[in-house]
C-alpha cells in the first residue's frame, strides 16, 4: 500500500468510528457476567490466567527454607511459616541454579537474569514475563505492570531486550492514577461513550508510522532493531487506545478501590512493606478489571539496601558481615530481613485471595513466580536460588503445592514449565547450560 492508500484506509476507518461514536452503546447492567459454572466470561471465553513475578534480593538462609520432603503436603520449613495458609497453592523449588558459562558474575543480578531470561551473557533475550505477556496480554490495556516497593524505578527484572528495560512504578498513587484515571473505562458502567479525543489522537499517532521504512533504511542492524522496539511499543500504545474506544466486557470482580494516599518511600523495610501493600491492592484491582494479565513486583533491589529504620546496616551488608551465630547456626541479622520479606510475599497472596472471581479467587487464576538472585548471599553463590510458584490452583493449567528438588539443574526449567502450562508453544528455552527442553512434568496439569 502506498501512502495515499494507507491514508484513505485510515480516513474510512475514522468515518466508521465517528458513526459509532454518535451512539451511546448501552448494555443491560448485571445481565450475566459469567456462565452458570462461574468459570468463564459472559461471552464464553474462559476466565484468563494471569502471571506475575515477585523478586527480592539476597536470597534466604540455606537449610532453613527448603522442605524436608518432596512432593505434596510437605512440612512448612522453618523460614516460611507465614506461607502455611497457601501451602496447597505454593510450590517450592530448591536446588535450581544459574550457570554463568564463563560470563562475568554481576553480583546480585546474574542469578536472577539467568532464571528470568535464560542467559547471563550479552544476549538480547527477553525476560519470562515479557514472553508470557506477548502471548497473553494483547487484549489488555497494559501488556504488563511493574512496581518497586522501595520506590526505585531501576528495581525491575523485566526486560524486552538489552535496550528495553521495563522500569518500575515507584509510587502507588501514580500507579493508581495511571490505571484508574480518566482513561479507564469501567467494564461495569451502564453506558459507554468512546472518547472523541482518544479517537483523534489515535488517528494522528498512526501518522508518525508512515515514514518508518525510510527511517529504518538509514540505520545499521542494531539500531534498526531498536527502532523496531520503538514501533512495537507504539503498536502497544495504539492497542491501549483501541481498547479505550471499545465497550469493555462486564467483569463481576472489577472494582477500582480507593485512591491511595502517598506515604513515605525509602529503604526502610517498614516503608517498603507499607508501599507494597498498597501496590498489591491496586494490582489486584488491575487484574480483576482485566487491565493487565502480567505484573512484576520488585520488593527490593538485588544487593538489598533494605534496612531497619535508624540502623546503618543494610540487609546486603548484614549477609556479608554478620557472623554465624554459634547456637542458631545461621546469621540472625540477615534472617530477620528474610522473615520480613516473606511476610510481604504472604501479604500479596492474601490480597489476591481476598478478591472473589467467579467460583474462586484471583489467586486461583494467578500464577506468581517468586525468586531471588542468589543461594547464599554471604558468598554470592548461584546454587539453589529460591524459586516459588504460588497460585493458579483454579486455572486448570498447573498443578500446585509441591516441593520439587533440582539437584543443580538450571532454574530455567521452572520458567519453561510455566510457559508451557500457560499455553505458549515452546519446546526449549535458554542459552548454553541454561538451555533446557525438560519441563517439570509433575507440574503440568
Amino acid at each position, binding site marked *: 500500500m502506498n501512502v495515499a492508500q494507507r491514508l484513505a484506509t485510515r480516513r474510512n476507518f475514522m468515518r466508521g468510528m465517528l458513526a459509532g461514536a454518535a451512539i451511546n452503546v448501552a448494555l443491560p447492567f448485571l445481565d450475566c457476567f459469567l456462565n452458570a459454572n462461574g468459570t468463564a466470561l459472559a461471552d464464553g471465553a474462559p476466565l484468563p490466567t494471569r502471571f506475575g513475578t515477585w523478586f527480592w534480593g539476597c536470597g534466604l538462609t540455606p537449610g532453613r527454607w527448603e522442605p524436608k520432603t518432596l512432593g505434596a503436603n510437605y512440612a512448612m520449613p522453618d523460614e516460611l511459616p507465614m506461607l502455611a495458609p497457601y501451602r496447597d497453592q505454593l510450590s517450592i523449588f530448591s536446588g535450581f541454579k544459574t550457570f554463568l558459562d564463563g560470563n562475568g558474575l554481576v553480583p546480585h543480578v546474574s542469578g536472577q537474569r539467568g532464571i528470568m531470561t535464560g542467559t547471563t551473557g550479552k544476549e538480547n533475550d527477553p525476560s519470562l514475563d515479557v514472553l508470557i505477556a506477548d502471548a497473553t496480554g494483547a487484549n489488555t490495556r497494559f501488556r504488563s505492570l511493574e512496581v518497586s516497593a522501595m520506590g526505585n524505578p531501576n528495581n525491575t527484572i523485566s526486560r524486552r531486550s538489552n*535496550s*528495553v528495560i521495563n522500569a518500575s512504578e515507584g509510587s502507588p498513587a501514580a500507579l493508581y492514577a495511571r490505571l484508574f484515571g480518566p482513561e479507564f473505562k469501567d467494564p461495569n458502567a451502564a453506558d459507554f461513550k468512546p472518547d*472523541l479525543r482518544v479517537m*483523534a489522537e489515535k488517528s494522528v499517532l498512526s501518522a508518525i508510522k508512515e515514514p518508518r521504512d525510510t527511517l529504518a533504511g538509514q540505520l*545499521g542492524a542494531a539500531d534498526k532493531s*531498536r527502532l523496531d522496539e520503538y514501533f512495537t511499543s507504539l503498536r502497544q500504545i495504539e492497542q491501549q487506545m483501541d481498547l479505550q474506544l471499545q465497550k469493555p466486557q462486564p467483569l463481576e470482580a472489577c472494582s477500582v478501590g480507593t485512591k491511595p494516599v502517598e506515604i513515605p518511600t525509602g529503604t526502610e523495610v517498614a516503608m517498603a512493606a507499607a508501599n507494597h501493600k498498597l501496590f498489591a491492592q491496586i494490582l489486584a484491582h488491575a487484574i480483576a478489571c482485566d487491565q493487565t494479565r502480567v505484573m512484576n513486583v520488585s520488593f527490593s533491589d538485588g544487593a538489598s*539496601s533494605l534496612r531497619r529504620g535508624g540502623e*546503618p546496616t543494610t540487609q546486603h551488608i548484614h549477609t556479608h558481615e554478620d557472623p554465624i551465630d554459634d547456637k542458631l547456626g545461621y546469621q540472625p541479622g540477615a534472617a530477620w530481613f528474610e522473615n520480613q520479606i516473606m511476610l510481604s510475599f504472604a501479604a500479596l497472596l492474601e490480597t489476591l485471595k481476598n478478591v472473589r472471581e467467579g467460583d474462586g479467587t484471583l489467586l486461583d487464576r494467578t500464577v506468581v513466580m517468586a525468586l531471588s538472585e542468589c543461594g547464599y548471599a554471604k558468598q554470592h553463590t548461584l546454587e539453589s536460588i529460591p524459586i516459588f510458584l504460588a497460585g493458579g490452583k483454579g486455572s486448570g493449567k498447573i498443578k500446585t503445592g509441591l516441593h520439587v528438588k533440582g539437584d543443580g539443574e538450571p532454574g530455567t526449567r521452572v520458567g519453561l514449565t510455566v510457559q508451557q502450562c500457560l499455553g505458549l508453544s515452546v519446546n526449549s528455552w535458554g542459552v548454553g547450560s541454561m538451555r533446557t527442553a525438560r519441563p517439570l512434568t509433575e507440574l503440568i496439569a
Partner: protein
Amino acid sequence: MASKSKILWGGIALVVVAAAVVAGPRLMDRQGGNKSDGIAATAGGPPVLRRLTQAQYKHAIADIFGNDIKIGGRFDPDIRESGLIEVGAGKASVPESGLEQYGKMARTVAAQVFDKQHRDSLIDCKPASVTAPDDKCAAQFLSQVGRLLYRRLPTQDELGPLILASAEATKIVGNFYAGLEIALSSMLQAPQFLFDWEVPQKGPSGKTLDAYSKAARLSFFLWDTAPDDELLTAAQHGDLDTPKGIAGQVDRLLASPRLETGVRAYFADMLGFDGFDNLAKDPAIYPKYSFGLAIDAQEQTLRTITDHLLTRNGDYRDLFTTRNSFLSRPLGAVYGIPVPKDAPGATPDGWQPYVFPAGDPRSGILMQISFLALHSHPGRTSPTLRGKALRETILCQKVPDPPGNVNFNLVQDTKNPLYKTVRQRLSAHATAPTCVGCHKMMDPIGLALENFDSIGTYRAGENEAAIDASGEIDGVKFNDADGLGKAVHDHPATSACLVNRLYAYSVGRTPTKSETEWLRSDLMSGFVADGYRLQPLMRRIATSDVFFRVVSPDSEAKPVRSASAQGVGQ
C-alpha cells in the same frame, strides 16, 4: 528537495535562541586550528542513534517552546554504559510504559503550547475558521515546529500524513487548534524527536555525518540541547560542510553562556549524579541529609567545576586540589562552616563563594559532599565504593566484579572490639587471596577519605580510635586525603581519562581503535599543550575532522589505512 522546501514557509523558527557571540574573557587564550591532527589513519566510528537523555529532552522543550512550559510525567531511567549515560543512550530504546509516559508529557506540553497564554505567540498563522481544517496554517506550523523538533527539515513523507491527520482530528473534535495540538503531541512522541538521528553522507574525502547530524552532534555536545535556529540554518546552507563554517559555529557555541549548561551536563554524567535520584541516608543517623541537601551538594561541585574550568580557565587537574568552592546554608551545616547571608559575594539565591583555608582537611572535588555521600552506604562509609568510584569515574579504570562463592567471613563485624575502624576490618581484603587483587585497587584510596562520614561530615576518629588516612595509589604514597588529591592531580590517567571520556560523550559511544590512537597521541598532546584546559579541548574535538567522520554502521570500525592514501582529513 524542492517539494520539501516548498512546505517550509520561510523556515521561521518559533523561538530564536539568543545567539549573540559574547567573547568573554575566558576565551582569550583559545587555541587555533588543529593542524597537527593525526587523522590520516583515523576512520571515525559508526553513527549513533541516541535516545535523548532526560536533561536533553527538557532542554529541547524549553528552548523550542519556552522556559515556562512544564513537563508532566516521568522519564524512564537513563541507561549508563561504559561510564556514561550519553553512551547508554546509544543503546536504549523505548519500552511501552516509557512511550506511555512520553505520550503523557507530549499531551501536557502540547496543551500548554496551545493554551491562551502561549498560542498566539507560538503559532504565527490563523485558520480561516476555528472549527474547520486549514491545511495551509497546519502545514506552516507543523513544518516550522517539525524543523526544530526533528532537527532538520521534515520531509513530505513526514509532513503530509501529519497534515492530513491533523485535519481529520480537527473534524473529529470540531476545533482547528485542538486538532493541531494533537498533531504536535504526536510529533513529540515520534522517534525523530525522541532519538538523535545521525545520518551519514558521502563526502569528497570519505563518509561523514550529514550537515544536520553534524549540527545536532555539536549542539548536544556543547549545549546539551537540540540545535538552535542559527545552527540549523547553517546546516541547511552548507556552512557545516566546510572546516571554516564548522569552526565559526563551534566558536559561537563555545562563546555562548549556554556552554555552561553543556559543561554541567558532561560532568553530571561523568560523576554519576543521576545516582542521587535513588540515594538514601538514614535520617536517624544523618538528620542533616535531605533531598535538598543532595541537590545543593551536586550544585556545589558543578559550580566549583564551571567556575574553575570556564570562569577561571583553570587546569583540569587542579579540580582535585583546589580550595575554591561555593556554599549554601544547608551545605554549611554539614561542613561546619557558618554561611551568613551578607558574606562578600553572596548571591540572592543563597550561594556564596568560599575558599577552604590552608590546613583545612578539605581540598578538591573528591572531598565535597557530592562524591563522599554518593559513594557511601546509607548509614556508613565505604572505602571500597569510594575507591571504586575514583578508579572508574576519574581514572577510567575498570575494577573487575567480585567472583562468585566468596567467603566474607573475614570482613569482620563492626562490634568486634579488636577491629574498631573500617581500615582494620578491611584488612581482611588484603589478606584473602581471592580479594586482594581487586581490593588493593580500591581500599587504600578509599581509606584516605575515612575522615569524612557517609554524608561528608569531618570526623577525627571512628569508635574512639583515630583514623589513619594514609595510603597509596599506583606506587605514589600519601599521608592523608589532601595527599590523595595531589596524587590524583599528578596521575597520568586523570587527564587521559578526561580526554577519552569527553570524546566518548561527544560522539555517544566508546571510541573505536583508530580514534583511541588519535585520542592518545594528537588530542592528548594538544590538551597538554593547552595547559589541560577544558574549552580548548572541546574546541579541538568539535573542529577536528575525526569528530564527524563515520564508518558504515555495520562494519566494525577499524583503522582504514587506504583512507590516508586518499589524503582524507586535509
